[in-house]
């Protein structure tokens, strides 16, 4: 009899702790937004987040109104997410080609008409890039994002040719990726 009661009590405790854990679990999306906000950039607006796998994520964000655009690479930790590397540039509309911790990333705004994005690497490999969308809450003054993004942890993305297509398969734009990532890093004023 006593044994039964003990088993019952242990069972109840386990069930309650599982319920509590589920209730108080903040989702990954939320944790990543908090992490980017902690960079203390004024008026940060976190855009779409791409979960590469269980342990890695890439996030696009704007800050200073729409003056600057950034890409952050995040690693999963025991309790949340940590930014391993990030970069921010002036929002010019040009393709952003950056090398972060594990990943090389190319991304920029996708025109509303763009439905398909194809990436041809310098070694001839052809792949398609994803279009990431995040609807912003206009009441909160958030911006809606529609960006195409392509990344790799093995391939060299230098000199890749990106072609965007509309719904009829017509070419919208052909974009040449620069030959060096993080172009700005070595840049100085003339």
């Amino acid at each position: 009899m006593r044994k039964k009661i003990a088993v019952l009590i242990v069972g109840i405790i386990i069930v309650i702790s599982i319920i509590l854990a589920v209730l108080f679990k903040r989702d990954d999306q939320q944790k990543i937004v908090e992490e980017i906000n902690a960079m203390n950039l004024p008026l940060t607006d976190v855009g779409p987040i791409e979960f590469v796998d269980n342990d890695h994520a890439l996030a696009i964000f704007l800050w200073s109104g729409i003056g600057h655009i950034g890409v952050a690479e995040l690693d999963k930790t025991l309790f949340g997410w940590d930014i391993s590397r990030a970069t921010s540039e002036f929002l010019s509309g040009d393709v952003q080609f950056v090398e972060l911790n594990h990943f090389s990333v190319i991304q920029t705004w996708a025109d509303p008409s763009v439905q398909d994005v194809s990436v041809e690497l310098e070694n001839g490999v052809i792949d398609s890039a994803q279009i990431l969308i995040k609807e912003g809450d206009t009441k909160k003054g958030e911006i809606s994002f529609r960006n195409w993004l392509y990344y790799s942890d093995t391939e060299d993305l230098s000199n890749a040719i990106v072609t965007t297509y509309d719904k009829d398969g017509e070419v919208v734009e052909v974009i040449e990726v620069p030959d060096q990532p993080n172009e700005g890093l070595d840049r100085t004023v003339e």
Partner: protein
Amino acid sequence: MSKKRILIVSIILIAVMVMISIIPINNYFEEKQQKQKELNRTLSNYAYLAQNFTLGIYYYELDNPIQVEMFPTSRTQWKLDRWKMVTEILPIIEYPEELIKENAWIEVSDNLERNIEHYRTYYDSKSKIEQESLIRPDAIWSFIVRNSRWSDNLLRALDEAGIDYD
């Protein structure tokens, strides 16, 4: 009697031990908070610089110690051009070419702020009537960093010097 004494002594001992252990724990959290504040201040400073001179930032490390590199963007030159224009009409404002080339943006920004303060001392030493025909110190920063057009005296001086600021 002796039992009571043992009880009292042990309560005091426990209380002392608790006190001793609380102090380092408290210190630890205070230190941690202090460090976080410092980190936040450093990050905000970089953001401020990046906004003022439209710079790019590459974050190598966001935790202790923060490690970033700043670089000019396509928009930076435009602001520096305005800075150079101001040096032509106000020689007290210098253009720290070497620092700018080295991407030492913290020092670059400090340099401009310091020179504006020097000019402010000069400006404040003048009478109200004389000040009316002088360029206001705050107008310098606004013109370079914010593209502000509210100082007639600054724009007039540029016009007179034949400098095209549009």
